[in-house]
């Protein structure tokens, strides 16, 4: 151990292990996390030459190789993977360079679980769970992002054959960016404008098979490909998709909340927001990613600042640790505090998501808007702060922060898309703001407001008191 770093550890007044147990929800969970790490990092199958020395194609192939191995080895880990969080941790460890099946196990599975009819669920879930199909979530289009109502992909219902006919009517309607869409996935949940009986009913999700399960070739009427090199995520084939009169059975629409009857009669959902529930889930995961991202950045920068010696505080004196300069402390310690603040708020976010999701399953939709407001605002707020914070951490490491060896370039390029996917941050804050303005009005009228906005029913004098 570097003596400067050791001195810092010896001088500490706290026991880091006590704090680690809090961060990871107790000794049992922490033990599980460490065993999972041992299982992955002691396994030679997960080793490769560093990503930085690979071409894009090699990165993709290595990502697929590790992801496939992770699936086959998962069962042997038994109790170490008890829930979805464990699964995410395992996949992140095993496929650190980009898990090809992240959307398969999150948004694809979650959409079907939450929005499909029982019949479709019974058909699709076993295939998904056994990896007999690989799914992704195709929402964003080349010309349309966060504004879902502007999506152009169409799904026209044909009552004669009881099928939906899917099309990409314009260049800008090309599905663009979904992870693992280009070369990996066989299926996708596709978001499209539903037309039936001559009327458009807005965006609805459909399960669409994209590739043959025999030879993996794209099906007739389907054009698929990778969108090319990106800022980061070299191992992921973020793809494009074009649909040309591609027919799917009526049952493949996710019809738990809104339905199209065999004759084409449309029944609308009890709440429009239910269509976007999967995004809410992912946004809560982004708050978690922000906490971990900033924690990684501050760990690198603070340890290095303890090791690095630079300049002279007074002429003739030895070079002090960079960490001893108040300016360096002022760069890093607020970010360290922010990382802890985000750790705690991500727990709250995930808890709130679980509670509200359960209420939705029980038919209670009263807190949907609050959940959307909360998840949108926190996703935007935490991801922006982390994005900016990582750059401050990198620059606080001087010239070495510019080297790939610092870990910062990869950390930054892999984190920064969190600011634009699952809702561009400014748009999300505007959505939150609309909810706040509405809540303020209702509060003024004396309505009882939900927990996170309850303060808006007070007036300033009451707050001050």
């Amino acid at each position, binding site marked *: 151990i570097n003596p400067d770093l050791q001195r810092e550890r010896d001088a500490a007044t706290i026991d880091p292990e006590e704090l680690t147990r809090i961060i990871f929800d107790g000794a049992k969970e922490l033990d599980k996390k460490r065993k999972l790490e041992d299982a992955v990092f002691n396994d030679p199958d997960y080793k490769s030459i560093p990503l930085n020395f690979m071409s894009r194609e090699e990165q993709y192939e290595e990502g697929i190789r590790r992801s496939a191995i992770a699936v086959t080895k998962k069962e042997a880990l038994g109790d170490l993977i008890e829930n979805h969080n464990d699964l995410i941790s395992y996949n992140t460890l095993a496929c650190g360079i980009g898990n090809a099946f992240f959307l398969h196990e999150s948004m694809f599975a979650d959409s079907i679980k939450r929005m499909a009819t029982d019949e479709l669920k019974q058909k699709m879930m076993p295939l998904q769970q056994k990896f007999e199909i690989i799914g992704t979530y195709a929402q964003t289009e080349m010309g349309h992002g966060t504004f879902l109502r502007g999506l152009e992909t169409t799904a026209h219902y044909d009552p004669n054959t009881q099928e939906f006919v899917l099309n990409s009517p314009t260049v800008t309607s090309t599905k663009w960016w979904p992870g693992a869409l280009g070369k990996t996935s066989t299926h996708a949940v596709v978001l499209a404008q539903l037309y039936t009986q001559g009327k458009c009913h807005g965006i609805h999700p459909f399960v669409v098979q994209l590739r043959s399960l025999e030879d993996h070739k794209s099906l007739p009427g389907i054009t698929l490909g990778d969108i090319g090199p990106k800022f980061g995520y070299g191992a992921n084939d973020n793809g494009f998709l074009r649909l040309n009169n591609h027919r799917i059975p009526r049952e493949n629409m996710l019809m738990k909340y809104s339905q199209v009857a065999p004759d084409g009669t449309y029944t609308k959902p009890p709440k429009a927001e239910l269509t976007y529930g999967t995004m809410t889930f992912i946004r809560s995961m982004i708050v978690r990613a922000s906490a971990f991202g900033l*924690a990684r950045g501050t760990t690198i920068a603070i340890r290095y600042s303890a090791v690095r010696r630079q300049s002279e505080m007074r002429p003739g004196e030895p070079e002090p640790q960079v960490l001893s300069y108040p300016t360096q402390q002022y760069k890093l310690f607020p970010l360290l505090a922010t990382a802890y603040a985000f750790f705690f708020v991500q727990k709250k976010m995930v808890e709130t998501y679980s509670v509200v999701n359960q209420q939705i399953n029980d038919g209670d939709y009263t807190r949907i808007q609050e959940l959307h407001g909360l998840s949108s605002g926190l996703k935007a707020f935490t991801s922006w702060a982390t994005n900016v914070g990582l750059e401050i951490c990198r620059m606080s490491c001087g010239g*070495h922060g510019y080297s790939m*060896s610092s870990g910062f370039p990869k950390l930054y390029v892999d984190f920064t898309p969190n600011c634009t996917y699952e809702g561009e941050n400014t748009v999300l804050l505007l959505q939150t703001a609309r909810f706040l303005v509405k809540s303020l009005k209702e509060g003024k009228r004396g309505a009882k407001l939900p927990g996170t906005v309850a303060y808006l029913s007070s007036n*300033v004098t009451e707050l001050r008191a």
Partner: protein
Amino acid sequence: RATSAGRDLKDPRLLVALYKERAMRQIMFASDKVEAARSEGLDLVGALNRASVHLVRAANAHSHLLVVENFHEKLQELKVSQKLKKTLLQLFQLYALDGITNCSGEFLEDGILSGTEVKAIRQYVVELLPLIRVNAVALVDAFDFRDEVLDSVLGRYDGNVYEELLKWALSSPLNKTDVHPSYDKYLKPLLHR
């Protein structure tokens, strides 16, 4: 520690209340702008668009409040050693106070804080730094990132940064040979024109 207004600006409950008022004021301000635009005859969408810059600021202030408030609640709930509690309290104070200095205009413009109080807060932030320094490395160690996860020569747990930087450099493909093939193709003809 008390200011001229008699307030202890490091008191967590006061800090949460300050953030609450700031969020409320920002939301009221944005909401008033929406209403003003509507009273000029704009429809709701047009009014929201005209007020959008203020609305973004309001949503940011609200989200910031949620983070601060939740951090405070967690501090109340945690059953940990006194030393750890004290350190986490310092982190909370730093987060909340530094947030105020970064958005001081919003706290000043409605008289939530006075200029003197903001100046005092700036000084508190600086005074908290050496207190946190004592545990800074322990606080990042607590995140429990293995070196394989951190994937950083600079952030290694053992701190043997310089030895590993040299090893990393030596593994660069450009160092496979002393003289790179491009020398014969481009440099040599240039140098021997």
